[in-house]
């Protein structure tokens, strides 16, 4: 019988280490194995215990509650106020389909044998029996699209790199996860890092690259430690190295740290940074797939994208492609947070409605007040009013409403939010994180803040509102990358859906 408790940094941020210590102190035989988190953060710290082939969960547990919990951990079929039953059944009942996150929260991340026992290396072994083109074809047939933000078909990107000439092709994992409201990359890197490493190895073998980089943001020290350990384990067990799983391919990965700059998540800025330069965005074309790291053909993919690939190879492209909605195939690792009762990671097939995610999975607002606005797709995503939430999660359907899937983050605000403040913040963030290469983004975002201030202060409201719209248009049209090009979206949506918030006198009266 084993006891499990996440080492996930968010669980640790609310006391998981203290709970682990309390359990060990109460009975060393129950000392928990540390795993990733399931994503059910309202129940963290969430203690699980084996019971037959099920895992019975208890949460949220505090260190103070541990003495009263020990008996229940020894006899998990007996009642206890914190007992939530079989955790996998709970996830399934929520409508989750844990495809990418199949091992997350179950597997012990630093244990190679546990990884293999939970299906690790199956995808890579399948790939090693295939022709390069067939691997790329499988990824294309799965319908997988990039989860870093743009939703570009992954198979098509790999095909470009496979077809490109030139030695020294490179696989780059974008682990910069800068969007507010997103944490799936972090959870996977902390809780199932070998899935990412396996995915990168498959990508390398598919396109003919022998070298990979993970570019990790420095705000994630726990993910760094987890990846460094996993890279050692992977090398030790032949998942990386001169002869991957004995099949004659070479592939290895180097971990590189970012240094606190949001724009370095944009793929060309990331490549500049990896090369040791300021992270200024490059002109496209050439695409990174043609001329990326050091001018060589480069696959740049997000963590979730790459970590999904082994499962696609293991189960077959069809298994993934049958899930989903429209042109959005497979599952989305929804990251639900902000003002919700049950924030967390929910992996659901595309097509579930945004309203259901917030109400059913999230349980509505944490404050108990009405939902007023939802920002989907990160800081560059539009604010959707409560009336627009009846929309399926689907790249195209959300875009029609002016929203976006992005990296899958959903941030909920209740009716105390001041949307003029949110609009101003969007421009402030744009200005702070601008790489400085183009004027509309660098200067426009500063001007827009001043103009919003004047509107809110009631200064020539009409002409200043027209000026703000004009500035937004200039940024949309004239910015080199989506940072400046999309920052107007939250601003314009706030202005369009919540005009009263920009009129302080009206609010005050």
């Amino acid at each position, binding site marked *: 019988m084993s006891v499990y408790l996440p080492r996930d940094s968010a669980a640790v941020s609310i006391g998981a280490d203290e709970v682990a210590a309390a359990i060990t102190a109460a009975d060393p035989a129950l000392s928990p194995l540390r795993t990733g988190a399931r994503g059910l953060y309202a129940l963290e710290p969430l203690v699980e215990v084996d019971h037959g082939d099920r895992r019975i969960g208890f949460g949220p547990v505090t260190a103070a509650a541990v003495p009263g919990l020990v008996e229940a951990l020894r006899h998990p079929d007996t009642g206890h106020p914190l007992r939530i039953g079989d955790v996998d059944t709970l996830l399934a009942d929520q409508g989750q389909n844990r495809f990418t996150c199949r091992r997350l929260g179950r597997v012990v991340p630093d244990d190679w044998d546990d990884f293999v026992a939970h299906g690790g290396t199956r995808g890579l072994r399948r790939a090693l029996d295939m022709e390069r083109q067939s691997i790329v074809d499988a990824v294309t047939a799965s319908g997988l699209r990039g989860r870093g933000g743009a939703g570009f078909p992954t198979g098509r990107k790999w095909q470009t790199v496979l077809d490109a000439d030139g030695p020294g092709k490179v696989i780059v994992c974008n682990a910069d996860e800068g969007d507010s*409201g997103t944490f799936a990359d972090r959870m996977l890197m902390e809780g199932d890092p070998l899935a990412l490493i396996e995915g990168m190895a498959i990508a390398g073998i598919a396109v003919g690259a022998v070298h990979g980089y993970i570019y990790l943001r420095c705000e994630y020290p726990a993910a760094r430690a987890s990846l460094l350990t996993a890279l050692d384990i992977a090398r030790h067990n032949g998942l990386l190295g001169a002869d991957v799983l004995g099949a004659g391919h070479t592939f290895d990965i180097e971990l590189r740290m970012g240094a*606190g700059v949001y724009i370095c998540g944009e793929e060309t800025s990331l490549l500049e940074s990896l090369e040791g330069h300021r992270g200024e965005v490059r002109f496209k074309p050439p695409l990174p797939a043609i001329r990326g790291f050091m001018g060589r053909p480069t696959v740049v993919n997000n963590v979730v994208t790459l970590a999904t690939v082994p499962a696609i190879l293991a189960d077959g492209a069809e298994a993934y492609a049958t899930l989903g909605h429209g042109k959005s195939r497979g599952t989305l690792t929804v990251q639900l947070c902000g003002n919700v009762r049950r924030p967390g990671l929910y992996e659901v097939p595309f097509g579930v409605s945004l309203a259901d995610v917030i109400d059913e999975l999230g349980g509505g607002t944490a404050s108990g007040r009405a939902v007023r606005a939802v920002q989907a797709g990160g800081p560059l995503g539009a604010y959707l009013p409560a009336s627009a939430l009846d929309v399926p999660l689907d790249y195209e359907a959300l875009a029609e409403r002016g929203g976006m899937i992005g990296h899958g983050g959903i941030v909920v605000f209740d009716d105390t939010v001041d949307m003029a403040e949110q609009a101003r913040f969007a421009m402030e*963030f744009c200005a702070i994180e601008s790489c400085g290469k183009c004027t509309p983004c660098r200067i426009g975002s500063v001007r827009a803040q001043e103009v919003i201030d004047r509107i809110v202060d009631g200064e020539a409201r009409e002409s200043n509102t027209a000026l703000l719209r004009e500035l937004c248009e200039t940024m949309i049209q004239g910015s080199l990358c989506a940072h400046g090009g999309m920052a107007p979206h939250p601003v314009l949506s706030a202005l369009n859906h919540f005009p009263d918030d920009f009129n302080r006198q009206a609010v005050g009266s």
Partner: protein
Amino acid sequence: MTTEESDGTLPSTIAAICRRHSGREGPLLAILHDVQDTFGHIPDEAVRHVAYTLNLTRAEVHGVVRFYTDFHAEPARAHRLKVCRAEACQAVGGRAVWAAAQALSAVPDGRVEIEPVYCLGNCPCGPSAQWDGRTLGRMTPERVHELVAAANGGMPS
């Protein structure tokens, strides 16, 4: 850092760091991280030696140090508190936590660097902050006061 490869002086320490990364392509950020981990910041003299070793201009290396928020050209206070200002934390009271932290950053001779950060990936447990690299969840203005006051030697803030 004094290792067998270095006699402890700045130039030999920098040389040892650069040697450690010599097989790598585009190693400048990795080198600067090591320099900062060793000295607590990236002193001017280090910039000169790194530039010399990598055959870059000092302006280039300075430009890189300045571009990245987490590289510091000046010595820092003993502790660093980063407070998330981004949307997911705003939605659960993060603005008040940041306001409390910002007010404390004005304390003269304080021992804590207070910085904004735009997401720590800790959103489901926000408002979030990071104290010397350790992520803290469900922060309140009161906890910010306690942390900072304790670091400043119990000085009331």
